[in-house]
């Protein structure tokens, strides 16, 4: 019998300690790869291949970072990546919220049927459409430009439409109606009421979009050829091909490529978590 009294029984204390122990061990396991990454990135190459391997670098070589980063036109790749990521993010935010508004706050015939189509496309593996898409962009002369990477984002993303719609549905309809009675247009309601009330979910969409396009490798690999147009992901892959076994340099560059995401995560953690919760709950 567990009691709801003031003190905890010995059994409860032991089980609580056990929970902490497991969670702490798990945390170590989760963080170890990152520690390993940092540690390797600071070792001289001769120490990287020492046996047995050192968990902490015995000699710290900060120069690994500037040395590795100057091997790549890092600033150019960073700029290319940011350019693509920001334009994709804007497109996905604007278009997906417009579409989601129509699917949640407006009444029109065919709404439910079309929403099923949105959900079905959410579940469609993009590779099925990739080859014709490649051919179309090739006909348009857009291979080796940023267009094939950016344009699709401006047609709305089904996943974000779903997410935003779920959120918009939680708003009360009375508020919309009151605004309409006061002479606000339907679009005005969307712009002045729905969007400002939806900052958390818009933040979540922005972060997801940033994360996805920052990490994306498949589409840049297919659509970009010229090294000057590479994103960081492609640049990193090229670097790996050239410096395949210089693990200290590879870890340094990889860490730098991850860093913006980690920073965004720490500053916007709340939005991250909220957003994930919107997507997966029920």
């Amino acid at each position, binding site marked *: 019998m567990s009691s709801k009294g003031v003190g905890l029984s010995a059994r409860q204390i032991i089980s609580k300690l056990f929970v902490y122990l497991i969670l702490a061990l798990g945390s170590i396991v989760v963080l170890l790869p990152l520690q*390993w990454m940092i540690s390797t990135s600071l070792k001289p190459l001769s120490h990287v291949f020492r046996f047995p391997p050192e968990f902490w670098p015995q000699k710290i070589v900060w120069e690994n970072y500037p040395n590795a980063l100057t091997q790549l036109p890092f600033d150019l790749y960073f700029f290319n990546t940011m350019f693509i990521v920001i334009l994709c993010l804007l497109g996905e935010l604007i278009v997906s919220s417009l579409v989601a508004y129509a699917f949640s706050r407006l009444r029109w015939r065919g709404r439910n049927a079309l929403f099923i189509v949105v959900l079905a496309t959410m579940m469609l593996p993009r590779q099925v459409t990739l*080859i*014709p898409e*490649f051919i179309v962009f090739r006909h348009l002369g857009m291979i080796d430009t940023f267009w094939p990477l950016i344009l699709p984002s401006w047609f709305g993303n089904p996943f974000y439409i779903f997410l935003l719609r779920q959120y918009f549905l939680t708003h009360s309809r009375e508020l919309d109606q009151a605004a309409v009675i006061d002479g606000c247009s339907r679009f005005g309601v969307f712009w002045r009421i729905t969007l400002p009330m939806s900052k958390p979910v818009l933040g979540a969409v922005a972060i997801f979009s940033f994360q996805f396009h920052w990490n994306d490798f498949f589409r840049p690999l297919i659509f970009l050829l010229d090294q000057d147009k590479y994103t960081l992901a492609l640049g990193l892959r090229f670097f790996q091909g050239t410096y395949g076994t210089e693990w200290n340099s590879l870890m340094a560059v990889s860490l730098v490529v991850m860093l913006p995401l980690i920073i965004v995560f720490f500053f916007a953690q709340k939005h991250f*978590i909220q957003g994930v919760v919107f997507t997966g709950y029920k």
Partner: protein
Amino acid sequence: MSLAQFVKNQGGFVNVNIGYKRGETVLAWAMISPWVAGFLLLTAFPMIASLALSFYKWNIISAPVYVGLANYHKLFFTDPLPMHSLKITVIFSLASIPLNIVFGLVIAMLLNTNIRGLAVFRTIYYLPAILSGVAVAILWQWIFSSDFGLLNTALRVFGIEGPAWLGSKIWVLPAFVIMRLWSVGGGMIIYLAGLQAIPTDLYEAAEIDGANWYQRIFRITLPMLSPTIFFQLITGVIFTMQIFTETFIMTNGGPANASLFYLLYLYRQAFQNFKMGYASALAWVFFIAILLLTLILFATAKFWVYYEGESEGDD
């Protein structure tokens, strides 16, 4: 369970038979027009085009030649690699998805026990889930290094001499499963939110009735969480089957094609060998395979997914 029912259970499937206004309908179509255009240009047309293309032989430069079912015949009967890569992709998914769900659930349940430092633990477990792509693949390639890698170094602490992981035909798939487990926090955070939404009076009632922890988990927690788990399962299948970057970076399909996941093979046929017709056939077979898996899961849902009362969110 049908897709329509699934949508209904997601909430907000409104009854809109009453009171349409012309202006609203026009505005609605204006607002969804980018999506409609995108659906037609980037989904519907390419799907039909790739189906048509799958009956042709085409190297992208010369004119396409109609070959009937030859691409499909090759895919199923003469070229051994498509079915091999489909098989290992399914095996990998069957191992990776349940393990991620179980670990995610266990961590979420441990975090949901009124512990201190919840936010710190949650951040730590969730962090790897935001990282993916080339940088993570390179990191894990180094971790799996047989002599100098982190994993075998850690195993040696326990007196175990680890395998060559990415260099071993047997261990390469388990290596990918382990790597994917690192991002278990993505699911964990969703389960945690689901757990926190379960009304406590259910547990209080169960306690009064004398239910033990085992009964509480299997009679309350898991049924209440089953829609969340189901959603994770469906998206997990679609997401996991599409593994590409890791194998492209870490093994390039090796050793001896042991990690030649389906998309890597498709990529090679389409964008390295420029066999656009054959690759389209590959894409369609992949699509059907994922669809079948998803439909099987939907069919099982009525036996284990529990939806509480009516859907919420109707307006």
